[in-house]
């Protein structure tokens, strides 16, 4: 027995010796699954072109990530499905008439410029899909700032809300998606179904989505608008534009949002406030994606400021520590 055993060599690893099955790939797959009702509704509303866009954009992102890492002789990371998710999310915030080639250009910008140049997954500081959209909107504003359905251009619901003509869509139409808009943004109902799945699978937490949507609701409720009831106005602000989709799927992007608990709430409130600021006072009816990009840039600072109170430290001690730290800094400066 001994002779046989002596030849055995064992691995030595530090604890824990077991890990959860839910790895990065599984999380990304969960995001893809969560978008299924949204994609399904988009295809139902806008036809097969929407599906073609989704598939080609996912393929484009995966290809660019593979090619970039191949050319630079880095490890191939397309297995983690994060590139596919970026391609999918990018299409969700584009209008249905977007040509396929345009989406692929957006893919290139999102994957190569925004994500890979900064080191790949987890390292980018801007949301790749939203940055890709912002890039496309700036480059092809004539094509992408309107929504065309069956060859007919229609103004977006937000255009009506903040424009001169009255809003032709009822609240129910906005909620269930009988409105023009980007492929993934129209049906709040489908988006909420996806969100429920993500939260049930613990892929995301409620903190960011709830604080984004809650803030948009609260600000528009307080702000109001002539010709609308407060509730109607606030709910239209939440449902008719991009707040639902971007607040749930984009603002919660891991790499570009804070990881601290209070930080996530501050970040979400910040997005909500900026969105409403842009909507009320900006020249652009849809504000949420830019609000998220701006808050992305604040993520690091927010996390640093939202240091957690660790176990065994009472609230008063924690505050005392904080002020002591501040005073020490002040002294060091003077």
């Amino acid at each position, binding site marked *: *027995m*001994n002779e046989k*055993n*002596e030849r*055995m060599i*064992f*691995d*030595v*690893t*530090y*604890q*824990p*010796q*077991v*890990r*959860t*099955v*839910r*790895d*990065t790939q*599984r*999380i990304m797959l969960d995001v893809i699954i969560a978008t299924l009702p949204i994609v399904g509704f988009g295809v139902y509303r806008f036809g097969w072109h929407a599906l073609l866009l989704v598939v080609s954009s996912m393929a484009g992102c995966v290809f660019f990530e593979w090619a970039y890492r191949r050319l630079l002789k880095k*490890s191939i*990371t397309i297995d983690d499905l*994060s590139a596919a998710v970026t391609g999918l999310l990018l299409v969700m915030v584009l209008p249905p008439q977007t040509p396929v080639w345009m989406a692929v250009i957006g893919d290139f910008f999102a994957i190569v410029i925004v994500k890979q140049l900064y080191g*790949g*997954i*987890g390292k980018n500081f801007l949301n790749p899909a939203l940055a890709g959209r912002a890039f496309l909107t700036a480059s092809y504003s004539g094509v992408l700032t309107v929504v065309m359905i069956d060859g007919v251009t229609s103004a977006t619901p937000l255009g009506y809300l903040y424009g001169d003509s009255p809003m032709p869509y009822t609240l129910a139409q906005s909620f269930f998606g009988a409105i023009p808009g980007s492929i993934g943004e129209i049906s709040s109902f489908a988006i909420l179904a996806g969100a429920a799945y993500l939260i049930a699978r*613990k892929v995301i*937490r409620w903190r960011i989505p709830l604080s984004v949507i809650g803030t948009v609701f609260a600000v528009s409720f307080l702000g109001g608008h002539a010709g609308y009831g407060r509730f109607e106005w606030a709910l239209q602000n939440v449902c008719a534009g991009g707040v639902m989709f971007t607040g749930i799927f984009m603002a919660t992007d*891991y*790499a570009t*949002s*804070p*990881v*601290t*608990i209070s930080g*996530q709430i501050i970040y979400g409130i910040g997005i909500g406030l900026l969105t409403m600021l842009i909507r009320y006072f900006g020249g652009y009816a849809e504000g949420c994606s830019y609000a998220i990009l701006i808050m992305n840039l604040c993520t690091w600072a927010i*996390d640093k400021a939202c*240091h*957690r*109170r*660790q*176990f*065994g*430290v*009472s609230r008063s001690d924690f505050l005392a520590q904080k002020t002591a730290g501040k005073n020490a800094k002040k002294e060091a400066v003077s």
Partner: protein
Amino acid sequence: MAFKFKGGVHPDYRKSPEVPVTVIAPPPQVVIPMAQHIGAPCTPLVKKGDTVKMYQKIGESAAPVSAPVHASVSGTVVAVEPRPHPLGDLIMSVVIENDYQDTPELMEPLTPAQLKDPEAILRRIREAGVVGMGGAMFPTAFKISSGRGKVDTLIINGAECEPYINGDHLTMLQYPDELLKGIELARIAQGVEKVYYGIEKNKQDAIDLLNAHGAAKYGIEIVPESTIYPQGGEKMQIKTLTGREVKPGGLPAGVGCCVISTRTAYAIYQACYEGKSVIERIVTVAGSAVKGPANAVIRVGTNFGYIAEQVGGFVRTPRKIVLGGPMMGICATTLEAVTVKGTAGLLFFTEEEDRTVEEPVCIRCGKCINVCPMRLEPTYMYQYYKKRNFEMLEKYHVTDCIECGSCTFRCPARMPLTHAFKTAKLMLQARAAKEKARAEAAAKEARK
């Protein structure tokens, strides 16, 4: 009542309390390490050629933080030399050739008067070599005596939150009366009135049984706790049962608590009522490399190869030997190593349990922060560790990490977080020691 601590994870428990307890016959040779506790190692009291009896004391130290060791079989001492210890080193050990007689040398059971005397109980706990049998192996007598005057609440840890391990659960089911008497002794020794017994709800049968056997009569309040890892962590247990939080760098006694494990309480019973020293314990043997889980009573000093053989041999080639539970258990390097008093589990793992990746990349999902029971920020701590930024590591309280492994367990990117924090702590300690030495040298210089 039950307060809640933040964070925690739900590992795949894979417990097997339904597997009946078996007794593994003692091996032809046992190897008794002289260090089976935290603190000063013992000096062997026997030499080669001596005859020893089962339960006989064979190693002792005069240091306060220590616990004597005892022979787990009767027979002849064939060697007193360094042998592989489960923790990896070669440790001075007494090797005993088993004569298969199990000739006992018991201590006198305590008299009814002594059973009421804290000092007598404490002396017996020390004499019997009782240590924290949950795995930490801290000498119990020292723990109790050092907490006197500060401790107002005794906590018995029956969470057994580690996957696979069943020893505490089965002890509750098998010896409820003995266990309750052991707890009563610990309470008398500690000199307190209040005893909480925290048991996770996945052991409802044990909770019911202990209540039926009159836990309340002994002044013990059994508190069912939610099943979440690391419920059995000392700090989490105190928080759950009393709402108190141990201060960073502080001890349980600092908040008036003393925590001892279920199996330790049973060992106290055996020491006082039966005069038995700690020479065996219940070990869960499991993992994908062995046939099936076994809950076996195993003598201290039995080597792992022999145990594997006794439970049916390897069905697959093991890649890892894990001592204790898989969340906090460490790896042994050889099958020659032996069980000690704190070995609650012996897991033989293959590739099946392995979920590490070659190039882990953090995706900043923040799950580590959500699950950290100490409310730390592992992802940032890891970044500062990579940069060797000690100032920030201290600011982010890496020294508070209890190394429960929750963050690493939950990490979808498979980052080696707990490992990094352990290393970071050691680096900080080394750095502090260096600085202290430098300051002392400077002070000396100044005095000249």
